[in-house]
């Protein structure tokens, strides 16, 4: 029956957000989330009062009618039909630049490759040069054994077609490939209030929350469709109403929280409804900076992967919260208190997915989502200081640092000696996506990772550790007792 489905394909597709599993890991028949980032208000259909259809401008209608080409008309039809399902009232012009999660050349992407090739053949291009998620493998630095290379070639047979297509449609150079498109080195950080139509759960989450841009939680394909049109249906997280918070999260930990577990807790509780978080602004010295943004990155990515959150607010810190404060809360909001005990309770639910006979890790993953410059510096100096203190020349555990190439180059230009010493000590630098290969069954059979990313934990068999514990494991190769 299977005609040769590789085992790693079965495994990989069970590792995603929106899995609909309960706390016990079993399917939850009451799971209810639409993946768009906001629970729709429409709960029943009355045929005597059909939902209004969005209004189009004359220019949009002309495109829909095919006056600017067949593929362009189908792009417009897709946006209109999709938007009407979610109550969109109109199309809005997009600004800034797109970011797409159409990045894996798996066979499942074949229909999307075909339709976007049709667009490219008609001469359609994105409204601005756009950023793309990391390539899903790195045959230079990470997957270097013959068996690993075969898994990659068989798992991603259409990768070059996807890369080729992005060049034709206006994608930026490969050195900017990253899930962290909003970092200064990558440069895709539209101004507050800009409408965009991004995909990639962590980028959407950060864009809406940290930058204050307005994007829905688009699925793969719809992101690029909007980019080609230069427009997106106006609904959900793009609207003032959709950006209101249904949860008040009171963080009452005794000190700076574990950002990954905090985000995981919020994601599991709120699923996809925006939370308003209080009690953590004191860890940011009054504002979000390149030196502290990684804390929000870690928390936000965990809310987006352990749940499906596309927007959060932090009191006194994030743009919407600075403007409107607690007026962002809906009247009948719910409250969730997170203290030290709750952090530890949530952490204790994270399973160890390694076989019983495996007691030691054989890789460390740092940078999911991709590292910022500051994180590269923190981990770089931390590892070298620890080696010096112990009189070690090399780390005990192969360690991969994930970042955009342009971020890695920034660190290299500023701190070449540190980078040289890290490389000599056994640290690998790569611009690939950790969850794209660590979740493959072929890897999970032989690779047992440790990580500081709750997103990587969620999508793979990796064990999540606090930063201090992870550094210790990198030095010793042994898990903490």
């Amino acid at each position, binding site marked *: 029956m*299977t*005609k040769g*489905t590789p085992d790693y394909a079965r495994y990989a597709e*069970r590792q995603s957000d929106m899995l609909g599993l309960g706390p016990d890991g079993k399917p939850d028949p009451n*799971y209810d989330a639409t*993946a768009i980032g906001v629970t729709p208000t429409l709960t029943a259909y009355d045929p005597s009062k059909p939902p209004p259809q969005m209004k189009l401008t004359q220019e949009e209608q002309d495109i829909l009618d095919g006056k600017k080409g067949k593929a362009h008309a189908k792009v417009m039809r*897709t946006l209109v039909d999709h938007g009407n399902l979610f109550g969109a009232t109109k199309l809005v012009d997009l600004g800034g630049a797109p970011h797409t999660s159409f990045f894996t050349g798996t066979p*499942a992407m074949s229909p999307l490759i075909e339709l976007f090739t049709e667009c490219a053949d008609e001469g359609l291009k994105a409204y601005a040069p756009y950023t793309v998620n990391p390539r899903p493998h790195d045959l230079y630095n990470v997957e270097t054994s013959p068996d690993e290379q075969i898994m990659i070639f068989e798992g991603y047979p259409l990768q070059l077609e996807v890369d080729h297509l992005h060049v034709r449609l206006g994608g930026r150079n490969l050195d900017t490939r990253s899930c962290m498109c909003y970092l200064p080195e990558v440069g895709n950080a539209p101004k507050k209030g800009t409408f965009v139509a991004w995909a990639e759960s962590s980028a959407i989450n950060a864009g809406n929350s940290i930058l204050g841009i307005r994007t829905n939680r688009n*699925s*793969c394909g719809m992101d690029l469709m909007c980019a080609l049109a230069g427009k997106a249906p106006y609904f959900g997280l793009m609207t003032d109403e959709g950006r209101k918070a249904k949860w008040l999260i009171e963080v009452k930990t005794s000190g700076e929280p574990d950002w990954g577990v905090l985000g995981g807790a919020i994601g599991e509780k709120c699923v996809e409804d925006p939370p308003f978080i209080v009690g953590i602004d004191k860890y940011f010295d009054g504002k979000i900076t390149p030196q502290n943004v990684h804390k929000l990155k870690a928390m936000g990515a965990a809310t987006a992967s352990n749940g499906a959150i596309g927007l959060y607010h932090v009191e006194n810190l994030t743009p919407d919260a600075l403007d409107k404060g607690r007026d962002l809360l809906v009247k009948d909001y719910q409250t969730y208190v997170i203290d030290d005990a709750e952090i530890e309770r949530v952490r204790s639910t994270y399973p160890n997915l390694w076989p019983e006979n495996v007691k030691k890790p054989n890789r460390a993953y740092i940078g999911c989502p991709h590292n910022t410059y500051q994180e590269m510096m923190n981990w770089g100096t931390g590892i070298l200081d620890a080696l010096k203190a112990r009189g070690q020349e090399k780390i005990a555990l192969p360690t991969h640092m994930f970042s955009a190439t342009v971020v890695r180059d920034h660190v290299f230009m500023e701190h070449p000696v540190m980078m040289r010493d890290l490389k000599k000590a056994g640290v690998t630098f790569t611009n690939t996506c950790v969850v794209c290969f660590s979740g493959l069954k072929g890897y999970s059979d032989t690779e047992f990772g440790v990580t500081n990313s709750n997103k990587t934990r969620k999508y793979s068999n990796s064990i999540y550790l606090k930063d201090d514990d992870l550094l210790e494991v990198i030095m010793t190769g042994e898990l903490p007792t």
Partner: protein
Amino acid sequence: MAKQTFQGRPVVAGDIDGNALVSKQPFNTTSSYIDNIWGGVTDSAPCTDQDNKELYQKDLNGVILCTPQTIGSSMGGGCLMAVAGLGVAPKAMLFSHHIDGVSAAGIVMANVWQEKPIITIDLLGDDFMNAVKNGDPVSIKEDGIVEVG
């Protein structure tokens, strides 16, 4: 059994009759089509989602799939397009809840780009899921009416 009638919203409208295949738990699109996407299966659509005890290994080709909503990877939309392209998609999908963004993208794109519509109705309500059983005759009308029994 007595015929029961439910009103839903036409996502992709159409008239069609058939028999129900029911997943009381949300349907994980990508996990269910692994053999079609990676395994080279083109003449049927065996459900590959081992977490779905109701549907695992059942042929999804041409069924009227009844489920609260779909879940899983954002590749799910592409998977629906892929099985539509192979001609082994469900002939209809009936959701008791609001359709989710991933399936909506795939169903809309299959309709617009491939001209291979998967007739789809959402917002049929919890009573629909409580009523419909595997094998029940189902009649779908253009206006979103679904008759079971």
